[in-house]
């Protein structure tokens, strides 16, 4: 079974501080991991996926298979980063491609 755990419901930081949103997963095969973001009054949208290995809006996430984690990081938070962040997992080859979402972490960046 696929499971995604985001242990923090809320993360509150000041502008310029580093941010790490935690995501741990449970999956027996090789997963594909995603981070989705939902800004206020906007739709859920893809932020980044692990296979792209790219930085989007200053955010990065590294898949750590040993720790089964895919934490989202940004060295210097901006006020416009305030949003709900969802970690999601889908099965790779041979698994279910249906993404399973974590419960989300609300990031608030204070001025």
């Amino acid at each position, binding site marked *: 079974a696929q499971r995604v755990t985001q242990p923090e419901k809320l993360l509150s930081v000041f502008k310029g501080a580093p941010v790490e949103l935690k995501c741990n997963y449970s999956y027996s095969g090789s997963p594909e991991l995603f981070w989705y973001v939902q800004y206020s009054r906007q*739709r859920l*949208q893809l932020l980044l*996926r692990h296979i792209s290995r790219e930085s989007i809006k200053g955010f990065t996430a590294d898949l750590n298979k040993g720790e089964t984690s895919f934490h989202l990081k940004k060295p210097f938070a901006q006020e416009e980063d305030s949003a709900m962040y969802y970690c999601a997992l889908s099965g*790779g080859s041979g698994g279910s491609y249906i993404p399973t*979402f974590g419960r989300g972490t609300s990031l608030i960046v204070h001025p």
Partner: protein
Amino acid sequence: EPEVTQTPSHQVTQMGQEVILRCVPISNHLYFYWYRQILGQKVEFLVSFYNNEISEKSEIFDDQFSVERPDGSNFTLKIRSTKLEDSAMYFCASSGPGAGNSPLHFGNGTRLTVT
């Protein structure tokens, strides 16, 4: 940029009534999904649809739920006899035309309130 559109944005209905939530996926996408999010809880998978049939469904998607692609552009979710616990935000999503692991594109959601 093409978007998934959902109507209505807010639906209020009485317990026991039927509701139909509508979605127009992105035109060249092949995979369609419904998810729901009860207030304060996680985004939960309901059903996926590919090649004009259900490809996967969750335990939540019982006989009260059905999906349809009536005309090649719309993708609907019907709840036959709504219950109070069906109150939630319902999100439609689509992906493709590549493999099923393509990222999902979500609509803005329909907030369903059952009274």
